[in-house]
């Protein structure tokens, strides 16, 4: 990690800028607009999520055919594939309740702060608290499990 390309961090930052500008422009940084979608009062949201998925999907499909590895990291170009287990359903459902209640998701919450929404700090504080709670619980469970294995 110490021998990262000097352009690695600038590129991440610029990518974040474009990403955040898009979240502002699309009004996903406004929880009201997300809630209005979930109540079927403004069906614009899928154009944001699937519009973004199509653009990134084209890159994910084409780049591995053009080049083997990424220029700034040497990482192989791979798609984002995660193994399926019931956590995807349990976590997805918990996320769904939170998203439906608040109209906010992580990326949109960061962008919401950028458009001036000071009140969103409540949501950000909640997200860190939630992430900490699940991490604390899963870390201690992992430790218990490894202790049990070692004891055998």
């Amino acid at each position: 990690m110490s021998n990262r390309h000097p352009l690695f961090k600038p590129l991440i930052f610029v990518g974040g800028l474009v990403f955040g500008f898009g979240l502002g422009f699309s009004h996903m940084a406004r929880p009201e607009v997300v809630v209005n979608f979930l109540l079927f009062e403004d069906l614009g949201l899928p154009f944001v999520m699937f519009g973004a998925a199509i653009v990134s999907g084209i890159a994910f499909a084409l780049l591995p055919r053009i080049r083997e590895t990424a220029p700034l990291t040497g990482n192989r170009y791979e798609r984002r594939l995660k193994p399926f287990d019931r956590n995807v359903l349990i976590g997805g459902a918990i996320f769904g309740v939170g998203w439906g209640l608040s109209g906010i998701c992580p990326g949109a919450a960061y962008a919401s702060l950028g458009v001036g929404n000071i009140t969103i700090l409540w949501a950000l504080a909640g997200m860190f608290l939630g992430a900490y709670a699940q991490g604390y619980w899963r870390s201690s469970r992992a430790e218990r499990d490894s202790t049990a294995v070692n004891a055998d």
Partner: protein
Amino acid sequence: MVPDPVLLQAAADFFPNGISRYAVGGLLVGLGTVLIYVGTGIPAGASTFLESTLSYVSDQSRFQQYVASRDWRVLFTAGIILGALAFAATFQSGLITSPLYEPGTTGQLYEVAGVTLWTTDIQPWRLFLGGILVGIGTRVGKGCTSGHGVCGVGSASKTSLVGVLTFLTVAIGTAQVVAALGVSP
């Protein structure tokens, strides 16, 4: 060709703010993701930042696994915040106007140093409680709207498609129940 009045009415009912701001915003979100992917091969999601940043203050193994990526994830998030601020300073402030951008009427606008900023009407308890569940759910469920919704769906990952279908369905049900209980805003 004369536009069908029934179709026009349906468009006005379901898309009161048009679709262009959503489509253009989505393309930009995708472009940001692609820029990072082209240079680094990383399909970046937004919610890992929560755990990777906690590794600065907690020794829990669950957070320490993200130590290698925590510095650039802070930078990615700072970029998102400042990119949204750039939007606020331009389109939200009316400095730039475009037929592709519909300003809308949600929330409250206020001004600081000539920049039009925006704040939500949604009640703090909904944001806080919802935020806690989002923090738990995205990390247990292996991704959020950008990780599963943008990168995962863009990868045609079955796991992500199931994840998106799950949180979208549950979110619609939750929002409907919350509205039916008379909670607004």
